[in-house]
C-alpha cells in the first residue's frame, strides 16, 4: 500500500515535469513568432522598448502594414505568389491524380517499366545545373511557368495517392464499368470522391510548397515584377538588401516613415508571408490527421 502511494506520487511528479517541458517547447516555438508580430504592430517611437522576448506590442501602430501596402513591388509579389500557388496547385493535382489513376490500373500496358521510371526519379536527382540548362534551352527562362512546372508531379505524393487509389474496392470500379463508365468517368466519379482527404491533403501540401518557393524563382526569374513574396522576403530579411522592396530610394522617402525601423518592417514582411499558411493550417491539421488515421500517409 505504501509502495503504491509512493509510486503514484512519483507518477504525478513525472507528469508535472512532462507538462512543464511541453509548455516550454510551445513557448520556444511561439515566442519568436509572436515577438515579430508584436514588433510589427508596435508604435514606431517605442519599437526599441520591446524586449526580444516580448509578445505584447508597445503601443499600437499600423504604419508597417501601411508602408507595405503602399509598396508596388511588395503588393505585386503577393499577387505573383497567389498566381503561382493557385495555377501550380491546380496543375499538380490534375497531373498527379491522372497519373496515379493510370499507374494503378493493372491493365496499363508497360506498367512495370513506368514504375521503374518513377523510382529512378525518386532516388536520383540530376542536380540544379542540368535542370537550369534544360529550362534555359526550352525557353522557360524568366517565365513563371519555370517556377510553376519544375515540380509539377512530386513522386512521393504520386506514390501516396497511388496507395489510396489501390484501396478503392475493385467491385465499385467494376460496377461503374458495367454501367458503361470509361476511365475518365471512373476517375472523376469513383476514385476522387473516395480519396477526398488524400486529395485535400496533397492539395494543401502542394499549395504550401508553391507559396514557400523562392529558390527556383531566384534562378529562373530576372524581372523583379515577377518575383514571388518569398524571394522579396529573402532579399530583404536574409540578405538585408532593401533595393527589391524599396527600390533605389530609402525608407526615409516614405511619409511618416522617417521614424519607421527596418526591424519592424522586416517583422511585418515575415508576418505577411506566414498569414496564408496560418489560414490553411486548420485544414492541414484536419485532413492530414484524418489521412494518418486512415493509415495511408507518412509511412
Amino acid at each position: 500500500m505504501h509502495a503504491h502511494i509512493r509510486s503514484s506520487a512519483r507518477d504525478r511528479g513525472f507528469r508535472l515535469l512532462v507538462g512543464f517541458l511541453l509548455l516550454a517547447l510551445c513557448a520556444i516555438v511561439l515566442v519568436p513568432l509572436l515577438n515579430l508580430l508584436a514588433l510589427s504592430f508596435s508604435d514606431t517611437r517605442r519599437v526599441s522598448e520591446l524586449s526580444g522576448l516580448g509578445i505584447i506590442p508597445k503601443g499600437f501602430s499600423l504604419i508597417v502594414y501601411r508602408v507595405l501596402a503602399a509598396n508596388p513591388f511588395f503588393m505585386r509579389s503577393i499577387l505573383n505568389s497567389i498566381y503561382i500557388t493557385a495555377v501550380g496547385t491546380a496543375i499538380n493535382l490534375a497531373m498527379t491524380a491522372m497519373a496515379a489513376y493510370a499507374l494503378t490500373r493493372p491493365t496499363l500496358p508497360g506498367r512495370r517499366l513506368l514504375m521503374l521510371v518513377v523510382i529512378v526519379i525518386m532516388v536520383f536527382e540530376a542536380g540544379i545545373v542540368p535542370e537550369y540548362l534544360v529550362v534555359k534551352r526550352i525557353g522557360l527562362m524568366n517565365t513563371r511557368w519555370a517556377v510553376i512546372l519544375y515540380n509539377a508531379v512530386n513522386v512521393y505524393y504520386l506514390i501516396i495517392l497511388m496507395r489510396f487509389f489501390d484501396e478503392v474496392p475493385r467491385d465499385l470500379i467494376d460496377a461503374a464499368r458495367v454501367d458503361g463508365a470509361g476511365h475518365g468517368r471512373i476517375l472523376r466519379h469513383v476514385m476522387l470522391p473516395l480519396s477526398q482527404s488524400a486529395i485535400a491533403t496533397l492539395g494543401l501540401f502542394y499549395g504550401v510548397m508553391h507559396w514557400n518557393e523562392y529558390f527556383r524563382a531566384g534562378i529562373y526569374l530576372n524581372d523583379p515584377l515577377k518575383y514571388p513574396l518569398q524571394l522579396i522576403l529573402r532579399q530583404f530579411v536574409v540578405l538585408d538588401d532593401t533595393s527589391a522592396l524599396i527600390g533605389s530610394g530609402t525608407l526615409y522617402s516614405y511619409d511618416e516613415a522617417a521614424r519607421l525601423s527596418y526591424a519592424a518592417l522586416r517583422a511585418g514582411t515575415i508576418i505577411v508571408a506566414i498569414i496564408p499558411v496560418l489560414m490553411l493550417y486548420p485544414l492541414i491539421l484536419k485532413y492530414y490527421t484524418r489521412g494518418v488515421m486512415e493509415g495511408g500517409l507518412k509511412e
Partner: protein
Amino acid sequence: MTGTASLGARMKRDAFLYVLLAPALVYFFIFHILPIAGMSIAFQDFRLVGKSPFVGFKHFIILFSSPAFTTVLTNTLILSAMKIILYFPFPIVFALMVNEIRFTAARKFVQGVAYLPHFLSWVVIAGVWIAFLSPSTGGANELRHLFGLAPIDFMTSKAHIRWVFFASETWRSLGWDSIIYLAALLRINPSLYEAAGIDGASTTQKMRLITIPELFPTMVTVFILNLGFFMSAGFDQVFNMTNDSVISVADILDTFVYRIGLVNFQYSFATAASLFKGIIGLVLILSTHFGAKRMTGKGLW
C-alpha cells in the same frame, strides 16, 4: 467483369490511360530525364554555343584534389550526422511526452503548435531566427542576459553556426517528425497497459517495458531511411542561414554546387560535384531502402 468488353474495345479504353498519363510523362521527361542525360556535361568542357569537347574525368580529378571540396564534404557529413544521428531521439521523446497528455484539448494544442514550423519556408525561418539570435535585440541574448552572460553573435560565429542549424532544424521538424511515432503509439494494444497497471507498474516502467519495445520497428525504419539522405544536409536551411563569416564551416555540397554552377557559371565542374553526390546518394538510398524492407517490411516504395 472486364471480359464483357471485346479485346479491341479494351485496347482502345486502355490507350486512354496513356492520355491521362501523358502530362506526367512529358513532365518527367523534361524536368527529370533530360537533366539526368544532361549530366554528361560533367565529362565535357561545357560551351553554350558549339560542341562541348569531351574531357574525361578532368573535372572529377580537379574536384577530388581541391581543398575546398574536402571542406565542403566534411561540413556535409558533420551536419548530416548532427541532423540524422544526434537529432534522432528528440522526436521520439517528444511523441512519448505528447502521449502522456490526458486532456484532448491540451494535446491538440501542443500538436498544433509543434507541427506549425514545418509549414514555414526556410526564408521565413531564417528571418525569425536571425531576429531571435540578434546580439543586440534578440530574445536568445536577452535570456543569456538574465543569467548574467555576455551576448553572442550566433549567426556569425563559426563555433556556434552548426548548433544554430541543429537548433533551427529541431525547431522546425521536431513536432512533424514525431507524427509517425504518435501513429505507432496509437496502434499499441491498450490491454498491455491495463495488465501492467494491475501488476502495479509505474508510468516509467510501462514506458520502458511496453512503449519503447513496441516503437522499436518504427525507430529502425525511420533511422535507416534517413541515412539514405546523408549527402543532403539541407540546402534551403544552409542557403538562407549562412553568411560570409561562417561559410568555411557552413558550406555543404549543395550550396557549393549552386555557387560554382549558377554563380560562377562553371557548369561542367558543378555538375561533376552533383554527379558525385548523386551516385553516393543513390547507393545510400538503395541500400537503406532494401535494408529497411528486409528488416521491417517497409521501404521508400
